[in-house]
């Protein structure tokens, strides 16, 4: 919330000219009938997605040449708002001329991109991205009907945020790599949860199988468990010296958490690891004292000796601890 948010943007002002034009005058709205298609020796596929009582519904028609699998004509019917109608319209346009296998690769992001006036400006405001997802879903359903397979079989990964098409594995990887701790960070890094918001937590616009809050909590728990395990493993063998810098710092942190920090905190102090520098002879661990430790007489003698001997014993004989 800041100056720009004081007067909320008007929903309709955020629509691209293409969205407006197609809403006012859709090009591929209409039906294709079975009898006509049969007369031309082609195959008709008609698929529904959504329902009026859900707030949005689309019916997609494909006339397919069975010899080439090419979609030679496509139309739609839509119960929905302006962006739903415009998304459906551009979807049919993207389908025409493609084989079914090519069409099934069209995603909601392609649909939204095709509605942009210029490549840099989104065609619809974030919460309306949801409408283009309908287009993606109904294409998969139509392709499934044509090929006699389940629509889900076209999806090789689990999509958590359909608006931004972010998969479960991507989310888990990004959380790990960047050590993310909040939903806002996840949205900043991946765009997941930034559109219709249904995938953030239960109770949104639509029910989801996976929610970002759960994925974040689960991944954080896994990260913590791995940290503990890494520390435990490191203590048991000489592999500490072969670890990467990040692993070394994590192992030192874990060891300090395990057997040192509690004693410092009891005396009103604390410490943090600043850096680790390895040479052939030594592994220098630079630390900074915090709170009461800072300037305490023992911090350069007894306490320092206790920290160093613990790390030496548990991690590596080469460790020297250097307060800065």
């Amino acid at each position, binding site marked *: 919330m800041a100056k720009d948010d004081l007067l909320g943007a008007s929903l309709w002002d955020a629509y691209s000219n293409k969205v407006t034009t197609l809403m006012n005058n859709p090009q591929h709205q209409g039906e294709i009938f079975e009898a006509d298609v049969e007369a031309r020796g082609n195959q008709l596929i008609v698929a529904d997605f959504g*329902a009026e009582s859900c707030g949005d519904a689309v019916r997609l028609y494909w006339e397919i040449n069975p010899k080439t699998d090419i979609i030679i004509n496509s139309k739609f019917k839509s119960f929905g708002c302006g962006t739903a109608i415009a998304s459906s319209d551009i979807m049919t346009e993207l389908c025409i001329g493609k084989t079914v296998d090519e069409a099934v690769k069209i995603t909601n992001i392609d649909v939204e991109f095709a509605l942009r006036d210029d490549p840099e400006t989104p065609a619809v405001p974030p919460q309306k991205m949801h409408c283009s997802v309908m287009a993606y879903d109904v294409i998969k359903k139509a392709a499934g009907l044509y090929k006699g397979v389940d629509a889900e079989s076209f999806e090789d990964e689990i999509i958590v945020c359909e608006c931004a098409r972010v998969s479960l594995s991507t989310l888990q990887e990004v959380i790990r790599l960047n050590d993310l701790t909040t939903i806002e960070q996840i949205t900043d890094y991946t765009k997941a949860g930034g559109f219709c918001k249904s995938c953030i937590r239960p109770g949104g616009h639509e029910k989801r199988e996976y929610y970002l809050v759960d994925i974040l909590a689960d991944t954080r728990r896994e990260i913590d468990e791995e940290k503990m395990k890494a520390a435990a493993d490191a203590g048991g063998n000489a592999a500490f010296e072969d670890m990467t810098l990040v692993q070394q710092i994590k192992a030192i942190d874990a060891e300090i958490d395990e057997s040192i920090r509690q004693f410092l905190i009891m005396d009103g102090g604390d410490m943090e690891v600043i850096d680790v520098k390895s040479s052939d002879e030594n592994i220098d661990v630079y630390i900074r004292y915090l709170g009461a430790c800072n300037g305490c007489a023992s911090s350069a003698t007894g306490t320092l000796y206790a920290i160093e001997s613990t790390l030496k014993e548990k991690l590596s004989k080469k460790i020297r601890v250097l307060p800065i």
Partner: protein
Amino acid sequence: MQVYLDNNATTMVDPLVVKTMTPFFSEIYGNPNSLHKFGTAAHPAISKAIDQVYTALNAADADDIVFTSCATESNNWVLQSIYTDYIVNGDKNHIVTTEVEHPSILATCKFLEDQGVKVTYLPVNEQGIVESHTVASFITDKTALVSIMWASNETGMIFPISEIGEICKTKGVLFHSDAVQAIGKIPVDLQNIHIDFVSMSAHKFHGPKGIGALYIKNSQALTPLLHGGEHMGGRRSGTLNVPLIVGMGKAIELATANIEETSAKIRAKRDKLEDAILELSETFVVGDRDNRTPNTILISIRGVEGEGMLWDLNNGQIGASTGSACASEELEANTVMLAIGADNELAHTGIRLSLSRFTTDEEIDYTINHFKDAVFRLRAISSSFAKQKPTEGGEVQECELHHH
């Protein structure tokens, strides 16, 4: 031609009201609390405005009607101060309200729930109103306040305020009503009804935005919401907003003088519009016409999504409103629509048309034409009216993941 049919959202300020307000910006601008003549110059106009408000609502001299910044402030004041006076500093712990109140009641109740207050949100019947026996059955000896709207902003349906007032009187419970959608649309006689607090807002009856009031029966105790100077007898601090007070006085006078006659004229136009659009197949209007504010229609049109309909009306220079989830920032379905809607459909196909005394017959005719054209166009696109059946297996059994 352009037609404004969103008068339940806000109204045009009557030019006569603007004229009455004008001198109090740059001619008579003193602070009414000042001793000098610049300050006292505004006193007669303020007194007149107070008289106009009391007369319009038939309030007794022993009652207080305190000017506020808006009905949201009035609603917050009642709820938050009842909490302070009767729950924090008393032995009550319960508030009764309805599922269909304005957000300024619902959000404040949620806030009070976070503070530990028990709140009962009463359901509405298929007419969109709370039945008085339902209210009676949820009042306990711990109930501090019953807060129920006088008329619904969405449906125009008028609640049984007189009966609920009697129930509250019998049970000895304080009674508040958000009367924003009633005052200026239907007669409101505060001496004829047992009620402790009433919220109102000037911009709903052709007055200016930024001013409302709270009626407090018998000047009973209620801790102020805004603390500060001794304005309005110490009940509501803040320098008196003279032009807006004068404007509200004039507006309520104009809205309530001859209200029977004026509302009969609005009702005739409303009924004409309603009858005409009900000629369309598969449409229905929420609520009994005789128990509705005379200016309001909430109509559901099968196969036509509300935001799409609003879009087409807007293209025809007609301003209306929808409770459709698609038109909201968070894609949340409207609580009022869900509370009364069968099978959720109303939540997506409801269009609200709200007239005013300035709506003309020509505007109604124009709207009827455009409305029908829009329904025709959107139904031609709508999957709800498609003829070719889906390929076997391509049907939708239910909402799939699209549950609301």
